[in-house]
């Protein structure tokens, strides 16, 4: 049993709307063995993961999985259930998993949802070990595995503070993405983005943080703002500490590091020289400089101030145990630490109580050691500071904080300059003003921990993440920018570019990804094929981008899911007979439609799917759209379109050369097809379809009609705008069409288009990539042979898995069946082939130049034209063209 590949589908994908791990499992020698046929397999599996009894599996009720095991299940399917169960044992409860056959016998796709990719990959690896151990009757250490996976989860997943913010953002529809493997998260997209890192935002100033870090400066600033704060001084050494305590501060005192956090090195309520000196040493270990300040009696409170408002408050009790007259302090601590809410790190509600030097000192102060046996009911402090991270507990008191106390806390955050601050208050009664009870604010913390408010050990949990999100994204702002996604077999690059062009008319900075690269407005920032999720992700990270259009190719969807979680508009131009069939286990046009449907499924509830009413496979996607559907079709009498309009739906179509936008029976004439330069006076049919898709999408995005029409009329259509798409050039009186189309549908529409241009002889330069199916290559050859008089073929540099000459031979087989072609030439190198074809044309000819590598092809054509022009061969014929 081996993994052929493991794909993390991080965005919406063919399995689900949320992230899925997809493993291609080759069962190898286990391929024909069912679970019930392997002796002991089921009993071992059920013994190791008894909790999987809840899995319903296909039987739809608890126990379903175990029942199916007994009935006999292939090991890939078992693997899926084990991986899911391991994930939930590690603390991530997710129910979705699938195992499907591929076209290859014994190879399965096992897919399950995840929250954390690292954990999911680890669970998959462990699941394989477990299944193999169960099958091979080998030992498997389940306890160690679960512990390991929990550790992985702890390390790799967001901590509770950050998670609370991300979850709150999600509830408001605000997207999030992690920027590093720690707590840095981007909320929102493009120009609307904000950043957080735990309880820190991009508004949290570095200066304010360093002030909060300096306890002495903080105290002075608090005092200047009239906030009650204890008397205190920085001390130099042990002797100075004691002298200051006695002479300037007055006993009892608190000793703490000047720089520090989370209560490390802080000791409170000290009255003896010995205790002060010990405390000085502990504090010195944390910071160069140590503060002695007046001890204020009372409880510890933490007040959370966000954006000038008190959002939550907790009373914090130091780590302690209650004696039972029998057990030692050590034993009592061990019992307290068995509380499942206590963990070693910060990831849980509570932390474990540690017996360290400070604990020993604290016990000594109470006349005890770790081995003492406290009386029944006696409260023994293990710490004197109440931080959760040192084993303390928290009780929510938000509702009873006196407004004057809240006002002081807000002032304290303001004077330090923090947007989010944890204010440490000492008070005997939080329901009274501090001034009445000698209460003080002792510290102001930047990036305060939130877990004591999110999950207090007692009292009401507070949704503090929401308060942070609401500060960053005021009402009505969900951090999103308009996003349109475009897919289809043909026309998607043209539609993508055209739609971006229209969107730019709104004055927004538009990010666009397509097969030619990434563009921010007119600037091309990447020039590879950028129709995948990584490129879309980059655009959504870009702080300039105010609207985005993504060409979305099948390869990326299959490899990693979509690069966005949601879109406002999804355009599907067509599926037709498909392209790239046979790759990645996609064999038929309807397989392909299933993949491309992902963008329709990603349409938001308020969004729109813009679908080709004339393509049944596209029409079949409509039910999967959460938002509404807008159909486009050249013919007004398309039955899908008529039915949709009858139900009040939106549509866009052509009537007497005029493009009409309709909602139900209400109609609006937009412009004539001839006004869109790309259609060559309305003569090129597929370009009219592309234009309809764009205009429909633009209307669905709420762009005003004036802008749409203005932009549609000026979508320049030359080689620089949409290189390699239906670029028409005049060479010595011949019409040369440069186009990227490389499949049956594209070629067929292109052939139909040829008649638009008057011509005598038809020539073509064509190639096919080796990764296409033999059938498809032959079909292309046939069409070429049926439609052209003379055809030049060549092979691309990348044979993609075929032997040299093999692809050309298959193409030639098709060509030979063609009934129009009179001459077929094969030329080895693509540039020579291109120049040769251009040399061949005479006035009145038409030549189809298929651009395989767009950039180089365009460059070569350009160079050819320039050198010919110099030689006086070519007239400076205007470039007439359009995009497709």
């Amino acid at each position, binding site marked *: 049993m081996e993994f052929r590949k493991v794909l993390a589908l991080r965005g919406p994908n063919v399995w689900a709307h949320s992230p899925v791990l997809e493993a291609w499992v080759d069962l190898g020698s286990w391929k024909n063995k069912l679970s019930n046929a392997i002796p002991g397999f089921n009993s071992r599996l059920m013994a190791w993961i008894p909790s999987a009894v809840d899995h319903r599996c296909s039987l739809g009720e608890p126990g379903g999985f175990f029942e199916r095991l007994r009935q006999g299940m292939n090991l890939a399917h078992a693997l899926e259930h084990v991986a899911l169960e391991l994930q939930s044992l590690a603390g991530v409860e997710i129910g979705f998993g699938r195992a499907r056959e591929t076209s290859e016998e014994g190879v399965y796709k096992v897919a399950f949802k995840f929250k954390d990719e690292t954990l999911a990959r680890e669970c998959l690896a462990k699941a394989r070990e477990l299944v193999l151990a169960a099958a091979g009757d080998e030992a498997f250490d389940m306890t160690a595995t679960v512990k390991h996976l929990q550790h992985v989860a702890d390390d790799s997943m967001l901590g509770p503070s950050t998670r609370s913010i991300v979850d709150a953002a999600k509830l408001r529809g605000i997207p999030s993405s992690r920027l590093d493997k720690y707590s840095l998260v981007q909320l929102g997209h493009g120009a609307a983005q904000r950043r957080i890192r735990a309880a820190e935002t991009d508004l949290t100033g570095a200066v304010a943080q360093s002030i909060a870090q300096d306890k002495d400066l903080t105290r002075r600033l608090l005092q200047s703002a009239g906030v009650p704060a204890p008397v205190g001084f920085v001390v130099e050494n042990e002797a100075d500490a004691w002298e200051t305590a006695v002479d300037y501060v007055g006993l009892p005192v608190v000793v703490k590091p000047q720089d520090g956090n989370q209560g490390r090195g802080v000791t409170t309520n000290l009255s003896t020289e010995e205790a002060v000196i010990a405390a000085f040493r502990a504090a010195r270990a944390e910071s160069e400089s140590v503060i002695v300040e007046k001890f204020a009696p009372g409880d510890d409170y933490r007040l959370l101030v966000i954006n000038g408002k008190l959002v939550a408050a907790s009373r914090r009790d130091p780590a302690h145990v209650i004696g039972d007259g029998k057990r030692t302090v050590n034993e009592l601590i061990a019992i307290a630490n068995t509380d499942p809410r206590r963990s070693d790190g910060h990831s849980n509600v509570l932390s474990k109580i540690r017996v360290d030097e400070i604990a020993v000192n604290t016990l000594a102060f109470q006349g005890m050691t770790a081995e003492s046996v406290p009386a029944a009911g006696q409260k023994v402090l293990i710490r004197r500071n109440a931080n959760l991270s040192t084993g303390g507990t928290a009780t929510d008191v938000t509702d009873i904080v006196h407004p004057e106390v809240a006002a002081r806390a807000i002032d304290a955050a303001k004077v330090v300059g923090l947007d989010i601050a944890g204010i440490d208050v000492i008070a005997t009664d939080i329901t009274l003003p501090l001034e009445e009870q000698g209460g003080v604010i002792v510290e102001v913390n930047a990036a305060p921990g939130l877990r004591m408010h999110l999950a207090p050990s007692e009292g009401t949990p507070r949704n503090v993440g929401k308060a942070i999100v609401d500060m960053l994204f005021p009402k009505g702002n969900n951090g999103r920018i308009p996003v349109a996604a475009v897919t289809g077999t043909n026309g998607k690059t043209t539609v993508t570019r055209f739609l971006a062009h229209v969107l730019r008319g709104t004055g927004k900075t538009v990010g666009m990804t397509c097969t030619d690269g990434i563009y921010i407005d007119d600037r091309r920032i990447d020039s590879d094929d950028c129709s995948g999720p990584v490129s879309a992700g980059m655009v959504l990270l870009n*702080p300039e981008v105010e609207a985005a259009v993504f060409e979305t190719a099948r390869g990326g969807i299959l490899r990693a899911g979509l690069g966005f979680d949601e879109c406002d508009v999804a355009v599907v131009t067509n599926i037709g007979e498909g392209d790239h069939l046979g790759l990645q286990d996609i064999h038929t046009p309807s397989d392909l439609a299933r993949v491309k449907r992902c963008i329709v499924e990603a349409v938001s509830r308020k969004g729109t799917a813009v679908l080709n009413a004339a393509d049944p496979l596209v029409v079949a996607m409509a039910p999967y759209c959460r938002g509404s559907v807008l159909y486009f079709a050249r013919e007004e009498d398309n039955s899908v379109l008529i039915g949709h309009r009858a139900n009040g739906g939106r549509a866009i179509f052509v009537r007497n050369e005029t493009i009409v936008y309709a909602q139900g029976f209400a109609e609006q004439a937009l412009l004539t097809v001839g006004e869109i330069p790309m259609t060559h006076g309305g003569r090129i049919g597929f370009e009219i379809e592309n234009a309809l898709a764009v205009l429909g999408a633009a209307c669905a995005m709420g762009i005003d009609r004036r802008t749409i029409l203005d932009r549609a009329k000026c979508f320049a259509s030359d080689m620089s705008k949409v290189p390699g798409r239906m670029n028409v050039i005049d060479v010595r009186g011949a019409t040369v069409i440069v186009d990227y189309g490389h499949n049956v549908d594209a070629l067929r529409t292109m052939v139909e288009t040829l008649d638009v241009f008057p011509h005598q002889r038809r020539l073509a330069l064509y190639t096919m990539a080796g990764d296409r199916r033999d059938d498809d290559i032959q079909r292309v050859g046939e069409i070429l042979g049926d439609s052209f008089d003379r055809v030049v073929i060549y092979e691309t540099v990348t044979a993609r898995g075929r032997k040299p000459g093999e692809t050309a031979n298959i193409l030639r087989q098709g060509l030979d069946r063609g009934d129009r072609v009179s001459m077929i030439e094969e030329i080895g190198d693509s540039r020579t082939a291109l120049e040769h074809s251009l040399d061949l044309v005479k006035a009145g000819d038409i030549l189809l130049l298929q651009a395989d590598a767009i950039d180089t092809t365009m460059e070569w054509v350009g160079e050819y034209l320039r050198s010919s022009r110099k030689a006086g061969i070519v007239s400076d014929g205007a470039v007439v063209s359009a995009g497709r």
Partner: protein
Amino acid sequence: MNLTQPPRIRTLRGPNTWARAPVLDVTILGSCAGIAETVLQLQREVGCRVAFHRTLSAGRFAVEYEDAEVGRLAVAVALGHADKAALADLADSVLLGVNTRALHDAALRRGIPVRRLDRGSLLQLGWGVHQRRLCGAFTDRTSSIGESIGWNKPLAKELLCAAGVPVPEGRRVADAEDAWNAAQEFGGVVVVKPEAANHGRGVFIGLETREEIGEAFTKASGEAENPNVIVERCVSGSEHRVLVIDGVVAAAARGDALYVIGDARRTIQELMDEVNLDPRRGYAPEAPLSPVGPDEVTLATLQRQGYDAASVPAQGARVLIQRNGNMSTDVTDLVCPENQRLAALAARAVGLDVAGVDLVADDISRPLHEQRGGVLEVNAMPGLMMHLHPGVGLPRPVDEMIVLSLYPAGGKGRIPIIAVSVESAAELCLRISSRLEAAGLCTGVACKSGLFVTGQAKRSGNRATSHDIFELLLHPLIEAAVVEVTDEAVVNAGLGFDCCDVVIFDGEPRTDAQRVLYESLNPGGITIPSSSAEDCVDWAVAAARR
């Protein structure tokens, strides 16, 4: 002179009866002839900018100070109670660094009050509600997250890349072998550096051979706590530092490579020593250029050319000493609009309001894309000296630009101060304050009856001291201050402010202290006799609201 009796020193931190500048008022037992000058001189020697001194009587003198602690120690040194080395050490650790000092002075030149908040670089500009803070080139709006993204080079690069800012291709490498493979991927000539490189430490540039790349990997992984090493394409061209303030390029400097020319006689070390004779080269932080020395990077550079420091290059041989690092030529006016846009975008992508963008280009006047140039780093808290004192070219007032970014409307960050210098001033202060409150101004009061904000007592006791006034002006909410000024307070500590808007007197100023107060009145300020209490309140309120 060695007097056993310690002097009595009063620190007059505001305008005082001797000077507008802060002074130490020193009384010693015995004659103080010449001591004031010595104290002044000692302070200057350790870098304090002080000018004023005056001998007041046989045993008393006043001397200006920049830092009170340094001034006091200078007095002790002058009296033989402490040694000079201690003074130099103290000055070194507490005086403002060059960048902060430049900002401090720029604010003062604008008439914005400035004070230090700690013994480090933290400055408070302005008073009350108009206060802002600076810490070196960090402003109070500089995001902590932005700062740490600047440090996290791989992440910064990813964000720059997403924003369309050209960056050199590169990646983290696992070991020396991987570093070599990476070098082949990126075209042969590479930079090897620690992931958390700082000030060029452990950065090795222009490496080509397997040996030097392996060696650089080992050294780079030994730097800092983070052992991760990056290999990236070596972008050819000069290093430039572009300072971006609030989305606008404020200045740009180019760091040129440094060569020495052999004379067949002297060693490279001797040739470098000659370079160091340039008066612009020095270890002082103000020096526009650092001295060149046989440090690791320089030695590696020499080694690549087949030299070491003791080699004697042939007549006319050009020996590369430093590829970069001497940001010395101002090129602000040459940066083309596209590169300006890219630098500003880089700062925005990382999330910094003030940022030093390091980029490499052959020619800064042509777009980066055209020359395969790239942005290498975006630094928080950039140094200002290379722009304020470039080795070649026009100085750029970047200190003033940063202050301008904090106070864009040309404000001085001040709030109206009404100083009351009459008998039983407390009642008058509170009456004025309540009228100002009624007019919508959050008002602070410091008087003999205590300290009040918005009419609420914040502290009791006599708060008519200069220290209390000083503290009151720190309050982040107040929009006006009404303060009682007593002769005693001025004599003990100087005035608690440099300028005020309204002074209320019993009559003509009679004492020295009152004259100090009178002189502190702003050009447009008014004095009001307290004869008619009601008129007095009206006038004061009207003046403060102007």
